[in-house]
């Protein structure tokens, strides 16, 4: 029997309600370190398995010693079984004088799936993994803009990335739905091409129309039946899966949405025994 841990992203503004519902939440993923004025943090830390999902660094660039120390401190502080990071590229190569980029977006954006970037990602994931002492779990980011240059397919890139770096994967179902739509593919056949045997965590949330992109996009809303259906499909094909997370993270997230999202996953995938 699959023993899945069911959880959600920690929302500090809902901390008291989360503690009150602790019997139906196994784990909390942390996108940010706790604020010093978060009075609920000691109880949250004691009560839940915590999954590190902070921004540790852009994996296409070499880590600084400061970044590595911070990553290891967070792993140890949370006692996280793995360290998650996005396969993203949100700032350009740092300038030659000080190594710092001249700007950085703060929203996930995918890299190009080229050979040179694969080499850099593999190298830096190995460095991170060795330093923090737990597996690194990489989450693919949906592709929207397609550039007409020779590249691996997303699936080829992730097979190579997992094989050559030893990393695990986090499969975000809405991300996969969006990428499949961009490539003009059926999402289930798109999923089957990915290295599903390396998936240890699945993220589930909803999609909503985005007025800037003129298409559905990731949103802090509940998953619909199509997303849940794709999730069922993925869960049945990910033998190393250990956790499933309601991935709605927003300072404006309503408590009802948070708990309904967790409840949907708990009813479908939860079991009395915790996964960790």
């Amino acid at each position, binding site marked *: 029997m699959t023993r899945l841990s069911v959880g959600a992203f920690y929302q500090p503004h809902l901390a008291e309600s989360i503690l009150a519902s602790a019997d139906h939440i196994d784990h909390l993923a942390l996108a940010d370190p706790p604020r010093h004025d978060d009075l609920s943090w000691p109880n949250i830390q004691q009560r839940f398995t915590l999954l590190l999902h902070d921004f540790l660094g852009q994996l*296409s660039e070499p880590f600084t010693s400061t970044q590595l120390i911070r990553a290891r401190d967070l792993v140890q502080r949370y006692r996280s079984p793995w360290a998650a990071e996005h396969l993203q590229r949100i700032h350009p190569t740092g300038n030659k004088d000080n190594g710092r980029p001249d700007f*950085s*977006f*703060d*929203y996930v954006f995918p890299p190009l799936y080229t050979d040179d970037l694969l080499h850099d990602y593999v190298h830096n994931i190995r460095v991170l993994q060795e330093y923090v002492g737990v597996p690194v779990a990489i989450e693919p980011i949906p592709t929207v803009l397609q*550039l007409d240059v020779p590249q691996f397919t997303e699936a080829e890139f992730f097979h190579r990335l997992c094989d050559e770096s030893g990393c695990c994967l986090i499969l975000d179902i809405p991300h996969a739905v969006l990428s499949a739509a961009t490539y003009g593919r059926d999402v289930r056949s798109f999923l089957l091409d990915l290295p599903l045997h390396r998936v240890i965590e699945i993220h589930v949330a909803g999609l909503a129309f985005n007025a800037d992109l*003129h298409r559905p996009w990731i949103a802090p809303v509940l998953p619909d039946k199509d997303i849940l259906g794709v999730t069922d499909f993925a869960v049945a094909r990910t033998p190393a899966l250990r956790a499933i997370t309601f991935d709605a993270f927003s*300072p404006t997230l309503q408590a009802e949405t948070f708990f309904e999202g967790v409840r949907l996953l708990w009813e479908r995938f939860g079991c009395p025994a915790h996964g960790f």
Partner: protein
Amino acid sequence: MTGRSLHDTLLRVLRDSAFREQVLDQCDHAAACAHHPEWHVIRRVSKDDLTNMARFLARHYYTERIVRLFRHIRRLSPRTGRDPRLVLDSPQVQVILDHAVVGSRQTAENLMSCIEEYLLENDSAIRLQLPFWRDLVHYQVTMFRLEACREDQRPMHLPCRSASARIAEFEWDLPAIIAALHSSQELLIEDKKVASKLLISACADQQVITHRCSSSVQLLFEAADGTKTVEQLRQHAGLSKQHTEEMLGQMKAIGAIQWKD
């Protein structure tokens, strides 16, 4: 051309509307494309798709900053009816986002004009209820502006006040008011009509930090123009060597002073 160089260029195109125009509109020129093969690839992407993605990224960038840097004003929005986050949905801001250089001082300034106008226009009813309202707006607007100046920081051989730091004066004791707002206790303001002076600075790790500004800190901060040695600053402020070095070190740590000591 490598994947890295192409992706770097793509990120710059998405960040900077003027560069985007240059890449998309001038690439007919054969010499430009010969020098920048990345431009030739990016030009084959739909201009609408690039513009839409750029606006999307810009909107997210500034939403995050408004949520973080205007959190006290947003906390009061049920009482004031004014949430600065809503400004991002206005047609005026849509134009700003479409012409943005994400993270630049100019774009931050353009957005701040809209947000300030929205928060301060016809605010007499709010000020009756929250007499410190204009001070609070001034405080959070200053934080937003300073964060956009972080790109100007350069290590200097002599202590120099940073472009991303400023001393701001307020009619109210803002730290006390903010603490009271945060504690969710009944806000008793009678004893808080006390002038305050704050050193506000944006440091490299994306935090904007505020400290109460003593007269010694003000003397050192204002005198540190990149031309005076620590000893000259010490004499100017009338402090001990140890005290001067400690204060300069603290100001450097929060990004108020640039100094490669």
